[in-house]
């Protein structure tokens, strides 16, 4: 393996990229229906798929038009995630295929004099390179010194490969960066998490409370559709947000909370429910422990106590608490999804779990329903070797409630710590742009420098691929088979993804890469199927279906569904140590943490600084879709929301560009200002995912600002390692280029 001393970021490869000008032109208007009222009826072909533009994985159909050209992607009516309608991003999924910035060939990093560059390689060469590198690490250090970062469906095959290789150090940014704290907060309270897609019976609820969820701006399809339904029915919606979010615009009550004070509000709500005796008493008496302790704890947390903290009027806190109680148990306090905020996130999620418990909505219609999940047997393979150590050992007792591995902890294990050599020697990165999704990107870059082997598998030249030794270009989800979608929901349902188009360029499906790599690594026994069709046929056969059938119907409901709601008087069992809902957690107490959540005041911005808040936009999934030609058109760059009073103070006008500087003097890319009443005066807001730094992303490069580049003060949750992203404050920078 050529020794590379510093791993330089390679932005432009002289080879391969840019060859062949196939692109959005295939969407050009060669068959415009204008004037011809009727498009001539030809043979339109549709192929089943499930979407990979986000993690919701809605099932649908990929259409080719009468000329056999890629046309559109439409939801499958039988799918419980999409209910026949794809969201903006899913509808724009075709753009992932047509994007001319895609990775086209396997790339290997080479030294060219002083400069490092990528050279186009054959798959054979790329696999040899990786197999050799992995073998070397295994021999010199042990296979557990290789980690896999994975996000997306195709990553599952790589997980199998890594386990077969001898490492169980597998992580996903979705845990510590996103919903891990929610999983643990609910597990500590109810004995289990609420899954993804979440088990929320929104369509039957009478009162939906959104706190940290900006449903409508995030397009979690099923929930958005059910949200629309309850708006239509005029149900009560309460939104807590420092911003007048889309959801706030649909709400009966909007509580424009001062950022970082959420726990105080939840405790005050709990106080009101208990004080006014309006919680679900029977349900709590039968199913929960620790009510007395909770009552004692929240005694002092009156709305008057919360007022100066949250900036919310006591009567508003009382009114909304009563509103929740009025509709309970058909009230849902949505625990939201990206919850890694301030370092006390598991406790905040605990507080929300307790609030939900008091509303008695667990297993209730219009509350948290009981999910069904299809049981589809796995393809059998030999037992994996037992790794010498796992990430749990590496944690050395840190984050005692982490049930998955925190990705930034993995990152830190590739850094020199107290003169110790970095633990990780090799990273395999599947479908996740670590530069943008982990906080403190400079640390990530340093970690990448320390590694002996970095492999990136992606469809797009995301910044992370510029730091890899080998880049494996995957074909998009529209060009490949993947494993079945077996996700929990109201029904036990499976979905098939089949290729609608031939892979463009020299790209390949993940399953094929893994299969070929396994041969090079002598691990082919773990992949005893000859191709994916055989693999799928086997699994489908076990549940009485077949590839032929699934190609026709796309999704299938399997029999044996359990009821979604608890029956009248049904005794519930919870997988907590006590078997009950734990309002008071002995487990936490014993581990030295607060058994009932407490409010701690977080740092507030100094004069001239504003808390940086960020969120989702309906047109994009994180930074992954910014270059998608269809979605880029809808939103090519983000805007910085600034309250008119702040704008006046700084002389800012809508439409002008500005940069942001955080308290560590990190300066963002330029971003266009939007002066709007829709935000508080003490914070600014931008949509996440923009400000791409890789010029290979033709449309996305340099457009808008990247919030994560400004996140240098990470607040780690001591319970499970969540990386709180909201500890940074920014001020305006009128420097170069604005």
């Amino acid at each position, binding site marked *: 393996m050529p020794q590379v001393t510093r791993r330089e970021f390679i932005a432009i490869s002289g080879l391969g990229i840019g060859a062949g000008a196939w692109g959005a032109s295939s969407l050009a208007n060669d068959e415009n229906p204008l004037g011809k009222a009727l498009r001539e009826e030809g043979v339109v072909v549709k192929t089943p798929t499930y979407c990979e533009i986000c993690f919701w994985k809605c099932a649908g159909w990929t259409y080719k038009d009468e000329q056999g050209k890629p046309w559109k992607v439409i939801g499958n009516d039988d799918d419980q995630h999409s209910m026949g309608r794809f969201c903006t991003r899913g509808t724009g999924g075709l753009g992932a295929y047509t994007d001319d910035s895609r990775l086209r060939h396997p790339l290997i990093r080479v030294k060219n004099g002083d400069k490092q560059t990528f050279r186009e390689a054959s798959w054979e060469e790329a696999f040899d390179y990786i197999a050799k590198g992995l073998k070397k690490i295994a021999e010199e250090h042990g296979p557990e010194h290789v980690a896999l970062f994975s996000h997306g469906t195709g990553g599952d095959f790589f997980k199998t490969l890594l386990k077969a290789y001898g490492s169980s150090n597998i992580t996903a940014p979705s845990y510590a960066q996103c919903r891990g704290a929610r999983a643990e907060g609910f597990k500590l309270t109810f004995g289990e998490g609420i899954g993804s897609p979440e088990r929320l019976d929104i369509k039957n609820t009478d009162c939906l409370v959104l706190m940290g969820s900006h449903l409508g701006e995030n397009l979690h399809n099923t929930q958005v559709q059910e949200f629309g339904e309850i708006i239509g029915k005029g149900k009560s919606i309460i939104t807590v947000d420092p911003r007048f979010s889309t959801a706030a615009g649909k709400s009966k009550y909007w509580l424009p909370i001062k950022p970082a004070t959420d726990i105080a509000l939840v405790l005050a709500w709990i106080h009101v429910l208990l004080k006014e005796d309006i919680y679900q008493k029977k349900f709590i008496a039968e199913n929960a422990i620790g009510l007395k302790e909770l009552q004692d704890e929240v005694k002092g947390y009156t709305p008057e106590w919360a007022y100066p903290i949250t900036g919310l009027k006591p009567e508003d806190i009382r009114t909304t608490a009563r509103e929740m109680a009025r509709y309970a148990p058909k009230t849902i306090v949505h625990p939201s999804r990206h919850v890694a905020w301030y370092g006390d996130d598991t406790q905040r999620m605990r507080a929300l779990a307790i609030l939900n418990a008091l509303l008695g909505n667990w297993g209730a219609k219009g509350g948290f329903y009981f999910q069904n999940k299809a049981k589809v047997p796995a393809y059998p393979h030999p037992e994996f070797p037992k790794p010498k150590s796992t990430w749990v050992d590496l944690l050395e007792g840190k984050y005692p409630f982490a049930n998955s591995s925190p990705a930034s902890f993995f990152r830190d294990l590739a850094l020199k710590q107290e003169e110790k050599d970095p633990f990780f020697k090799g990273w395999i990165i599947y479908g996740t742009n670590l530069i943008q999704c982990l906080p403190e990107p400079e640390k990530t870059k340093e970690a990448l420098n320390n590694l002996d082997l970095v492999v990136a598998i992606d469809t797009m030249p995301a910044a992370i691929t510029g730091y890899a030794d080998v880049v494996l270009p995957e074909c998009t989800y529209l060009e490949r088979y993947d494993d079945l979608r077996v996700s929990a929901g109201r029904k036990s349902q499976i979905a098939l993804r089949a290729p609608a188009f031939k892979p463009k360029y020299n790209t390949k499906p993940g399953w094929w890469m893994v299969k070929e790599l396994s041969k090079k690594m002598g691990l082919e026994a773990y992949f005893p199927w000859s191709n994916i069709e055989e693999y799928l046929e086997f699994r489908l056969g076990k549940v009485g279906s077949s590839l032929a059938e699934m190609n026709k119907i796309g999704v299938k409901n399997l029999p044996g569904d359990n009821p979604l709601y608890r029956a009248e008087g049904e005794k519930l069992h919870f997988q907590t140590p006590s078997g009950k809902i734990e309002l008071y957690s002995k487990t936490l107490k014993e581990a030295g943490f607060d058994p009932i959540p407490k409010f701690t005041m977080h740092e507030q911005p100094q004069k001239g600084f504003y808390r940086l808040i960020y969120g989702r936009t309906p047109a994009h999934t994180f930074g992954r879709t910014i270059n998608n030609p269809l979605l880029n*058109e*809808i*939103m*090519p760059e983000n805007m910085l929301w600034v309250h*008119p009073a702040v704008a006046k103070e700084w002389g800012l006008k809508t439409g002008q560009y500005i940069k942001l500087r955080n308290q560590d003097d990190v300066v963002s890319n330029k971003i266009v200002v*939007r002066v*709007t*009443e829709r935000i508080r005066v003490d914070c600014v807001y931008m949509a996440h995912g923009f400000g791409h730094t890789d010029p290979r992303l033709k449309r996305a490069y340099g457009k808008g600002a990247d919030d994560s580049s400004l996140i240098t003060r990470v607040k780690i949750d001591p319970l499970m390692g969540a990386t709180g992203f909201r500890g940074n404050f920014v001020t305006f920078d009128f420097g170069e280029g604005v």
Partner: protein
Amino acid sequence: MTETLIISNKVNHLIDPQLSIWGWEVPVYLFLGGLAAGALVVSSLVILFGKEEQYKNATGRLIFWGLLFLSVGMGALFLDLEYKVHVWRFYTAFELKSPMSWGSWILMIFYPVSFLLMIATSKTSFSQLRARLGVFDGEGVFAKATQWCELKKNTLAKVGVVTGASLGGYTGVLLSANSARPFWNSSILGVLFLVSGLSTLIAFHLLFVRNHEEHRVFARIDMGLIVFELALLGFWVLGFLNGSEISQRAGHAIMGGNYTELFWIFVVGLGLLTPLVMEWLEERGRKIPVVLTSLLILCGGLALRILMVYAGQETGWITY
């Protein structure tokens, strides 16, 4: 406070962020079309008033210039078409309610009428050329046709007045028929453009007039036209001031907005008031360079059309 914005990034070429479908080609066409219309109207009136002998340069030659102006103008218009190979489609349909359809058919009448009038007045206008070509006199087909033209001269001139006035008015109606663009949506525009076309044509004609008496007559007519045009512009501005909110917003373009200077200084000041004063002083016996007066009027006429076309596109009902 209301904040209104398009959030799906609509960036249709020539439409967003504001309408810019018509560039220099259209005002140039409207200006030259106005001159051509003026040429046909003025020359026809000269014939009808029996002044053909007196104002030799004001009939056939003026019509010739008119045809030239119109042809160049139509060339500009052609350049503006986005689908040029479909240009013939104008003449496979007559759309009763479409000003542009009327316009394209008026053009089709304009050419033969102008041509026939040129022949009808060729004895006075192009006597030397006629003599040299020879075919217009004697017994040939051309000669017979020429005789017919000369016989029907007055009828042709009547048709000429109507055709010319229609063309001149049409250049304004083309814009004013758009209720979608409040800046244009005034019935004054048709008359205004006709009057401006006549005035600019006379200014052009004055450049070639050597006869003092002829100069005095045409300059007087021009002064009248300029006064009339000023009055029309006054009514037009009053229409904005007294109009609905949307109308007032449109009027802002020339009253505080981006086109204030162009309108008040170039169109009204230099294009109308200054030459009016100059013509008046000349009338009072002062020596005024006619080239300057005429150029100011011509530039003012062009400026008026540039203002109309550009400012009109910037106004609309929607503000986002």
